[in-house]
């Protein structure tokens, strides 16, 4: 069967001069890429005044799609739907503050990481009771379903917290401000966006960087050619300064030090 396919593929090569060496479903062969992006994380992916999605993830995804020669089509995706959407073929790739973890890699593949960042903690401006990760012990922390942050806090660092479960971290903002919970812990980029979107709430971001998150591009399992093409595009974004510019544009004004971003070590495409 594989040999037949190879022979047919070779015949196609002769006839058209184009031939996909891999699975025909590879993202490198698509003219339109359905990209799963956040639509409720300001600075990362959220509607502007015209209703168009804008943000860091949108810019990155747009650039990568262009590098692959495809037209991007945005599909808003919540944290909990990321693996499922990829596996069901509802999206071709996910660019949505998606941390690469060994467990997730059993379900899907990751290109990248395209950026490195840390988990951090946001609390009320007048709350001085939390200075280290250990201070979260017994406190109530916002937990978005299928985020890996509580796993890190409890599983890796042995700090036991109560969780307040929501679909999106944005749903925790008012609850945090009103004292219903004590903290939101997640990617520092997401925190910066949340704080930026609700400056009226008087929240502050601490300096407890307790993890090293590798943010990658979720892909359907087995698309090696697609994964490699994305890695090449990411390398290019670092070499030509696109990544540094994009990070600066969205996060520099929020006080994040993103002027000279470190180069991510790729996971590799299996």
């Amino acid at each position: 069967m594989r040999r037949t396919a190879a022979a047919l593929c070779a015949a196609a090569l002769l006839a058209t001069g184009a031939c996909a060496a891999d699975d025909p479903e590879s993202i490198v062969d698509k003219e339109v890429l359905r990209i799963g992006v956040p639509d409720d994380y300001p600075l990362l992916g959220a509607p502007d005044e015209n209703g168009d999605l804008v943000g860091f993830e949108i810019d990155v995804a747009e650039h990568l799609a262009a590098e692959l020669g495809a037209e991007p089509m945005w599909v808003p995706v919540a944290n909990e739907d990321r693996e499922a959407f990829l596996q069901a073929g509802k999206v071709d790739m996910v660019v949505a503050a998606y941390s690469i973890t060994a467990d997730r890699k059993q379900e899907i593949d990751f290109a990248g990481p395209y950026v490195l960042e840390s988990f951090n903690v946001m609390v009320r401006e007048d709350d001085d009771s939390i200075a280290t990760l250990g201070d979260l012990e017994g406190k109530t922390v916002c937990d978005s379903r299928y985020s890996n942050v509580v796993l890190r806090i409890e599983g890796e660092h042995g700090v036991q917290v109560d969780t307040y479960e929501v679909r999106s971290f944005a749903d925790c903002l008012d609850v945090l401000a009103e004292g219903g919970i004590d903290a939101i812990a997640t990617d520092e980029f997401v925190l910066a966006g949340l704080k930026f979107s609700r400056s009226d709430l008087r929240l502050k971001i601490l300096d407890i960087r307790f993890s090293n998150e590798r943010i990658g591009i979720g892909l359907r399992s087995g698309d090696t050619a697609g994964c490699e093409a994305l890695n090449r595009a990411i390398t290019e974004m670092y070499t030509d300064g696109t990544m540094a510019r994009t990070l600066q544009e969205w996060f520099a004004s929020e006080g994040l030090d993103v002027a000279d971003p470190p180069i991510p070590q790729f996971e590799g495409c299996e």
Partner: protein
Amino acid sequence: MNAAPDEAALGRLGLARGAAGARSLWVRAAVAVAALAAMFASLAVAVTAARGALDVIGHESGRQVVATVDLYVALSDADTKVATVLLLGADAPVETEAALREYAALRGDIAKSLLEAHRLAGAAQTQRDTIESIMGYYGQYEQLAAEALLLADLADYPAGQVPEDVLAAYRAAADLMQGWILPQAYNLTLENGTIVRESHDGAQSAIGFGLAAVAATGAAALAALAWLQLHLARAFRRLLNPSLLVTTAVAALYLFTGLVVLGAERDALDEAKTDGFDTTMSLKRAEAISTSLHADQVRYLLDPARVDVYEQTFLDKAQQLLYIDGAGNLADYRTGLGGGADQGLIAAGLDRGAAGDAALASYASLIDADAAMRADAAATPAERLRAVTDALAEYEGDLAALVEARLDTFDDAIGDGEDAIADFAFLLPAAMVSLIVLTFSGLAPRLREFR
């Protein structure tokens, strides 16, 4: 008898004598020779693609994978030696001396590896740029590391109590190593893996196409030769033309040989890629990740402010080497490892031999030693470090043995592939010329009859 209707009838049969007869003989011969030429051209294209892929896998990008991982390992080890010296301070002069000596030796290895990687990059400009970028950053690293070592020498502190200015100087160096130098080296390894895959896939397509094309053109050539034979039999009432018969038999033999060689080449390429390259690549990547795993251990002891992060990155790397389902912390990981693991970079490179078992066992011992190191806060840093370095040395030795064995398989597979097509460069033109000569030597006496 009227000659004209006879000539007309013969003409319809394609048996015209004179100029028309000679032309029809020429046309048939030309068709046969064209089909033969097409068969040999298809073979040549497929064989050239296979040879190109073997070059890329065996001698260019395949070698670059090995060279860039060796570079990565030397760089990461050098950083670990610096961290070790800083950690031990003034308390363990013997270990400190040893670490400094190794650091000096590693700087030599790094220079050598950089040159080798640059040489193997050949004309590939992006790869050369990357290697030059690593060279530039490494120059800065050496300065920062020297600064940290000098500050440490002046401060003369007890082991484990590293002054803040020494730590700050080291962090600058370590950040450069982890954030700019090592990732570029590792990504270069992966990029060469991509080049190998693309080259392999391209050659397999070309061979698949070659097989179909050789079969089709070969069948056409045999049919054309038979057609020529039939024509001669009818026109000249000779049952068989011996010379053409030999041509046909030899063409059939070449067709058969060509198909067999291409089939064998396809298998040899597959073996070189899958059993040779892919497993070597996994194990070489495992070597790279393993050295940076140890770097995280030393930094864990060195820099209390970043303990959480270094413990997490250690776990992430361990999960890359051997994956344990759902292991959210090091204790779970260690427990899970007892149950065996069959996924991850090490697992991908294992065969069922004793070398594989040894590597798995020494890896498990390293994880045990790591747990002991983390738990034993009362011991001196030198003691804690010694517990893991012994286990690490054994594990790295076993891993290196596994890599060696895989590299041999890899070289053998490349050699087999090259042997299968070694004579083709000479054989193909020779076969082509000999078949054309045979064809026309069979026709020459008949063509003379037209004069």
